[in-house]
């Protein structure tokens, strides 16, 4: 797949412009020299002034950086989006049904559709969650599905991200910046709004409040604090929703109920949108050395006195090894064929598949099972022979620690670079909310690999973002 030219979202192979990009193309052609250069530097100033930063772990030059923002939006046609969002909705429903089943009767294991060992001996499986009844039966309320496009009508889901996906604030701020930078372009295209996300997030959180919470439940966003890489997003979302931004020490549990320490004394908390990993949530239940969590929180949750969003233990459904079974999962719970495809994935514990992988590693993508953010990953075609050899050794040493996939020819979008406008590879992370119903914000976060030819879009690896426009009919 790597040899063929990637699908470009703006231009057809014959150089003509694809329908959804007509208005953008005309606008680009009208821009005087240097206009984009100016816009690009304005954008940088806007982001830095607003303090929209993220922290790069291990980076020496200061802890905060601005994610590069590309001023050329990525455009998705209305009918393309309808198809995508149907597939996403189906997937998140099936994954929530799977989680309910895994933490209750485990029918799918009994039916032999997924090997028992893969689930029960998986580090992401949380036995503490067995038999627990989450509000509305929902485990994964906030989801960011990573999708790549390889053709006009061909999409693949790379990852489901059911733990605490980040980046939604960039989706919102990218739109804000784009409206400031190119208001005239919005007049020419009918772009679906993304500004509804914070309100929808609030509704979703309210809809899963415990039964006794009353009309207007108290919502807290639980953050590890200002040194966390996504702190900006935590404070941004709390602000936009009108929720309290709390750190662990701001909360305490008394009599199985959760309270926050306010200027006027304890105040009950009903729903916690936590941006702390499972392991750190509650030192009494999970890691005892956690300073970030709240002692007793899990028991309060078990007692049904507070809702945790997302529920602990959702990682079992987005584990890279379980990922290969998602089409199976969709069929098992919904009786439908999966609308969105999985990327074919090789299982290195199988000797035959492993040998094939080792022989063809230069054409493949290798990912660590528990890695994220582009760390512990190798893209064969853009890596050196030494890297190939290193990953061959790694796979042989611990075949269960890696999954291997073909190198997908990610679609490209026109992107502003030093040499002018040039195609760069992109992916897409739409944000999905699951509560009383499924709410999908039209658009999402488009990540773009700014280096020519690169397929790694992660911000920690030099990727940037683009505003993502879903056109309305």
């Amino acid at each position, binding site marked *: 797949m790597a040899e063929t030219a990637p699908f470009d979202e703006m231009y057809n192979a014959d150089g003509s412009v694809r329908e959804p990009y007509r208005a953008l193309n005309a606008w680009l052609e009208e821009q005087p020299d240097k206009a984009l250069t100016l816009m690009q530097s304005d954008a940088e100033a806007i982001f830095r*002034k607003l*303090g929209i930063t993220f922290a790069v772990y291990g980076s020496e030059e200061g802890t905060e950086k601005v994610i590069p923002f590309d001023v050329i939006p990525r455009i998705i046609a209305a009918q393309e989006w309808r198809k995508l969002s149907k597939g996403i909705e189906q997937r998140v429903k099936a994954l929530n049904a799977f989680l309910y089943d895994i933490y209750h009767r485990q029918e799918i294991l009994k039916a032999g559709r997924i090997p028992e060992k893969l689930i029960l001996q998986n580090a992401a499986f949380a036995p503490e969650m067995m038999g627990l009844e989450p509000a509305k039966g929902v485990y994964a309320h906030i989801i960011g599905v990573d999708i790549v496009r390889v053709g006009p009508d061909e999409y693949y889901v790379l990852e489901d991200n059911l733990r605490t996906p980040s980046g939604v604030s960039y989706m919102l701020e990218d739109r804000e910046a784009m409206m400031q930078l190119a208001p005239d372009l919005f007049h020419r295209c009918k772009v679906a709004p993304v500004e509804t996300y914070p309100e929808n997030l609030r509704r979703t959180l309210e809809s899963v409040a415990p039964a006794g919470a009353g009309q207007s439940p108290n919502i807290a966003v639980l953050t590890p604090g200002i040194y966390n890489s996504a702190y900006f997003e935590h404070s941004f979302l*709390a602000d936009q929703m009108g929720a*309290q931004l709390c*750190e662990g*020490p*701001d909360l305490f549990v008394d009599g199985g109920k959760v309270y926050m320490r*306010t*200027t006027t004394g304890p105040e009950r908390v009903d729903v916690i949108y936590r941006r702390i990993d499972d392991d750190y949530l509650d030192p009494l239940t999970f890691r005892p050395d956690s300073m970030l969590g709240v002692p007793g929180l899990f028991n309060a949750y078990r007692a049904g006195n507070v809702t945790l969003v997302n529920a602990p233990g959702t990682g079992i459904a987005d584990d890279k090894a379980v990922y290969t079974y998602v089409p199976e999962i969709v069929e098992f719970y919904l009786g439908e064929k999966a609308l969105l495809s999985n990327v074919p994935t090789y299982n290195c514990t199988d000797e035959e598949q492993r040998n094939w992988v080792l022989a063809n590693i230069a054409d493949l993508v290798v990912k660590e099972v528990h890695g994220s953010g582009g760390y512990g990953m190798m893209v064969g075609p853009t890596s050196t022979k030494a890297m190939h050899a290193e990953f061959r050794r790694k796979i042989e040493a611990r075949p269960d620690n890696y999954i291997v996939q073909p190198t997908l020819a990610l679609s490209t979008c026109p992107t502003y670079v030093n040499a002018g406008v040039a195609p760069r590879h992109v992916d897409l992370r739409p944000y999905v909310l699951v509560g009383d119903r499924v709410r999908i914000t039209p658009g999402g976060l488009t990540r773009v690999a700014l280096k020519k030819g690169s397929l790694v879009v992660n911000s920690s690896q030099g990727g940037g973002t683009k505003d993502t426009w879903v056109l309305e009919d």
Partner: protein
Amino acid sequence: MMLGRTAQNLFWLSRYVERAENMARLLEVGYRMSLTSRREGGSSEHLMSMMQAAEVDEAFAAKHKTADVDTVAHFMMFDPDNSSSVYSCLLAARTNARSVRTAITTDMWESMNGAWLEYSQIKPRDVRGAKLLGLLQWVKQRSHEFRGALLGTILRDDGFAFLQAGNFVERADNTARILDMKYYVLLPRATLVGGELDIQQWTLILRAASAHRSYRHVYHDRYKAQNIADFLILRPEMPRSLNFCAQFVQQNLDLLADFYGRKQECQEAASQLLAMVEDTSMEKIFSHGLHEFLTEFIARNNRVTDALSESYNFY
């Protein structure tokens, strides 16, 4: 509803901005005095007494042998080991602001964040001589800008009261320390006319409080020890006087009590602070002892912070 930690962060955010400004003021005075001092060793003496007022003299002595202008300026402006350096204050203010982004306005955040981003880019070795005065001016201006953003954009609720309380507790502390540093030149003496040295010291005190010109507007008179003390302690119209600051502290703690509908211990602490500078006269203060008076004032001011932390669950 506000977290106790948020209230605490707001209070200290304001305090640190005010402190950064006061450190710049003090350094400016020390620097000017060191330029005009004619006596041998006088320059270092001025700088040391300035650092005494800032309560960083011991930290300085632990690190440096001699107090020359460049060393002192670097210590006061850029040294992260000096917890009151402008650098440390702006970093602490910005860290507090970042923790309470949801409780302050975008304008306040942008002002604070912008100040920090600019300041952290400055290379200390580029800041000498005339450049130093320019930078001190810049620090004051950024403090004014932040206060302007605060007054112009924030809701008049509990958050506002915590911010204001922090601002005036810090300012009261600073003015009291400036006075205490030179209290002996303010004592009434047999001779009514001050010597050269006195005038120089008085100018220092007034300048440190940005009061050397407004003094004339109020007293229409040449510098006199008793007037200067009166101006910075009792005058209600002087925005850096102890009286003015104590009134604002009291007002804002009353505002909090109204807002929450409950009287609190800290209001009593504020009343006791204000009682020291209300319905009194400089004669009474001098007869009691100026230094003793200032020491007591600083102690009561600290009690306000303690009581406030207690009343509103800072932790």
